[in-house]
Each structure stands twice: as structure tokens, then as C-alpha cells.
């Protein structure tokens, strides 16, 4: 039997077979755990943040090959980014970096985005002073007169 046929492209297979950043961070500054209601997968991302920058990111995933690859790629991509940059992170970046995912598996990359954002929210909850604009208090929506 040929060894050239795999379910996903070589990049996805590589991140599934040799996941980067697997595990937990001791004394993490933010931890997010999310589940996909669609399929039941669960993803957990923990972050080490220093001076507003993501110094380390690690994951644990209960899910399919593309969910594991998505969490591996997401943690690779966000290391070194500032919290503000990371808050704008989109699942599309994971899909692109992985060289594409089958349409039915796009939700796996969304789960990675959600896990990352849950971890960032956890960090901001612990450090309310870091929330942009927090010092002046939350502004009201401008009212048109």
C-alpha cells in the first residue's frame, strides 16, 4: 500500500504528528478552555504573558487531527505577539498557515481562536489595568442629538 495518501495535507499532518507547544504552563497568566458544541471537541490554551507580550503558549486538545493541528499552529503563531494583537487573532490565520483545512473542519480553527481568546480574557480578568481604555472607565455610546 502506498504511503503517500493522508487525510490532511503535509503541514496539517506534521502538526498533528509532531504537535508544537503541547502541555500546560505552570503559573500561567491566562488559561482558556472551550468546547465545540458542534462536535464535542475540547481545547485548552494557557499563556505566559510578560510586559504585554505573549512569551509562551501551550495547548491540550481533545479532538480530531485538524483540531490538534489547529491548536498547535495557533500557539505557534501567537507567541511573541502583544495582547492587543492577539485579541485580533482570527481563525483564518490558522487555516492559511496550515495550508488549508477541509470545509467541514474549519470549525476546528475557530475553536483554536476561541480557546486563545478565552485565555486572553482570563488574563485581562486577572489584570483589569491592562484593558485598553479601562483607566478612564467605559465610555458611553455616542448619542446623536
Amino acid at each position, binding site marked *: 500500500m502506498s504511503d503517500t495518501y493522508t487525510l490532511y495535507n503535509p503541514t496539517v499532518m506534521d502538526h498533528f*504528528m509532531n504537535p508544537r507547544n503541547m502541555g500546560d504552563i505552570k503559573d500561567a497568566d491566562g488559561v482558556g478552555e*472551550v468546547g*465545540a458544541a*458542534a462536535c464535542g471537541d*475540547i481545547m485548552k490554551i494557557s499563556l505566559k504573558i510578560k510586559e504585554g507580550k505573549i512569551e509562551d503558549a501551550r495547548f491540550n486538545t481533545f479532538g480530531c487531527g485538524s483540531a490538534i493541528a489547529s491548536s498547535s499552529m495557533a500557539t505557534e503563531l501567537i507567541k511573541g505577539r502583544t495582547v492587543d494583537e492577539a485579541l485580533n487573532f482570527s481563525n483564518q490565520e490558522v487555516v492559511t498557515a496550515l495550508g488549508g483545512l477541509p470545509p467541514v473542519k474549519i470549525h476546528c480553527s475557530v475553536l483554536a481562536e476561541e480557546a486563545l481568546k478565552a485565555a486572553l480574557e482570563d488574563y485581562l480578568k486577572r489584570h483589569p489595568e491592562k484593558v485598553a481604555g479601562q483607566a478612564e472607565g467605559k465610555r458611553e455610546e455616542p448619542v446623536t442629538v
Partner: protein
Amino acid sequence: MRHVFLDHQSTTPVLPEVFEAMRPYFTEAFGNPSSLHRYGLQVRDALAKARAQFAALIDAESAEDILFTSGGTEAVNLAVKGAAFANQRKGNHIVVSEVEHPAVLNSIEFLEKQGFTSTKVKVDPIGWVDPDDVRAAITDKTILVSLHYANHDIGTIQSVREIGKIASEKAIPFFVDAVASAGWLPIDVQAMGIHLLSFAPHRFYGPKGVGVLYRNRRARVVSIIHGGVQEGGRRAGTENVPAIVGGGLAAEVALREMPRRIAHAAKLQKRLWEGLKAEVPYIKLNGPEPGPKRISTNLNISTEFIEGEGQLLLCDMNGIAVASGSSCVSKSLKISHVLAAIGLEHALAQGNLIMTVGKDNTEDEIDYVIETFARIVQKLRGMSPMWDEFERGIIDSVIAPTGRGKSFTEHASAVSGKPVH
């Protein structure tokens, strides 16, 4: 890398002698069996021989009771829709089990849009249909009882003979889907009271592209594919002659070899399950224990705290071909309807893997699978937040509860914000 094919429920390789028997029907004996010249007549003879070989496999009264279709799915469609439409003046109700193959269930779903109704009989936790439940589901409008012989997912063998008796008493046509069992279980359509029976030779070392519908002369079916008057007017379209010839020979060999094949598969099935149980903690067998209630080829397991597609992929990367009923494997993102029907916890259905042995697997291969699978489970558990949370006492095991932590399902709905289906 070693290669172990453990997905014989999906298909099997064609026997070399079957392939050889098919070869002349592509090139020399290429005639159309409907033609009236010698090319056609020669091929017609070959079809008659195959009909007799298929009839023998299931103990049909006559070779004339055998109809050829394009595959198992078409044979099922012809049986279900053909019998429903043929009997619609008598009633519109079909009794079926909830664990049938999609070919059956989706045919019935189609019929329901045409005004038919159905009762889907429930199964017990090992996937068995109680014949009394079938009896209770029958109404005076029932025109078909449809039940498989062995389940395609979890291998449960149904009490077909008893249900055949009930259908006969009530004079209702009885259709048995034997796609997952023909060639691997002895079938006697006459003794079992079966009026219609479907099967596909590619499940027992014949070619793809041909299916068989046995139709007892007392059972009426109307055709669903219209055209010429092939197959006695019940299935239009030129017959796939090479596949029919090959399938016929595969049936003959399957009948002859059946006791040996069953004994071999049963031995490997037992070895595989005993080995997995010993090497992998928190693993569960779905369906009946290996033995008389389970087809000898099938093992359906759930490994806790990890998901099935990852298991399947890592098996494949180690040369082991298997299947899974996990939601991540299905295009609809739903767990197998069979696993849902037996009431399997979602977390266990997610960790599902299906291994089906065949006549050419060896004990040595099974040992390789056991040892490799134990490593795969360890690797995936190392990545799984569920395993970590189980070890820390946050969530509990379904298979062997420790009494610490909440259930996986509770945990999953908490983190996903929605109840897990």
C-alpha cells in the same frame, strides 16, 4: 512500515481466482446479455451460473429469485421502496429498527415524504432488537418489516428467525439487509422466513459494482430504475457482467470456506479484544461480547478521554487501517446513530473506533495492532485536557468511575456553553 487492514466491514480485496474468472468478461465474452446472438447468449449463461451461486449462499429455492443491482445500497433501495410501493394499496406502515444502515433508514425517510409512515423499534444496550417489540409495532396498516441480520457498526446479530416467524404469522413481507453479514454468517432464507434479502459481494472477497437482491416469489416489488426489461423487468439497465461473474464465484468460495473463515475471524476477534482490554486502561467494548450474539469479524471500542479521528489517523500512520463512528469522522459532525441508539455517552462515542478482521489477518498482525494501539492511546492522552483533568480529579471516568469530579458530559457542556448532543 507494516500494513494491517482492519476495515473489512468497508470492503475486502478481490480473490485472485475471482479476478481471473472476471477477466474474459471484459475482453472476449463482452456481449450484452440482452442480445440475441451468440455473444449475448454466452454471457446469459454466465449470469445464470452466478445466480445459482448466489442462491446457494443463502439457500434460496431458485436461482430465479436472485436479482442483480449496482450494489448493496441499490438492492436495499429496491427492496424497501419497491415493496412499499407494490403494497401501498394494503397499507402505508413500515416497521424497522433504529440501528439500520443509512441505505434503509434514508430510503424510509424518502418514503415518509411520499405518505408512508414508520415505527423505528428501539434496541437494548447491546443493539439487539427484541422480537416482541417488532410484534407490538405491527399494525393493520403494516406492509413491510425491515431488519438487518448483523449490525454494520457494532456487530450485533439479530433474532431474524423469530422475527421472520412473526412476519409470516401476520402475512407481512420481511426484508433482511444482510450486506454486513452475507458470507460471514450462514443464511437460510427459507428457514428464516425471509422474503427479501440484500447483500454485496465486495464484503466477501468479490468485486464492487454489484449487489444482490433475493426476492421470494411471494414478495412483490415494483421497479425503481426504469428502462429496458432486464432482470425480469424489475431492474432496468445492462448487467455488470464481469462483477456478477466474479461475485458469483466469491459467493461459492465464501459458502465453502465459511466455517473456516468464521473460526479464524472469531479467534482473532477474541485475541484483539483480550489484548486491548489488558493493555489499554479505560476502554469499553460496544455491542455484545465476542460469541454467538456478535458477528465474528467486528470489534467496536470506545477509548476514554481521547477522540476517534485522532486514533484513526495515528493507526493509519502506523499502517493500520480502521474506521470510527466519532462525530469528527462524519461529514455531518454527528456521532454514529447506532452508538446514539445504544445510549452510549457522548464522550465514549467520540472515542470510538471500529476494527473488522478478515480471513487474511494473522495473530502476529493482531499483536502488532494491540501494542501499537496502546502507544497511540498514550500519545493522544498526553495531549488531551480530559485525561489531565481526570488525573487531577476534576472529571470522572464513565467506564470505571472513581467517584471524584463531575462527568465528562457536564464538563463538556460547561465549556462549550451548550448541552452536548
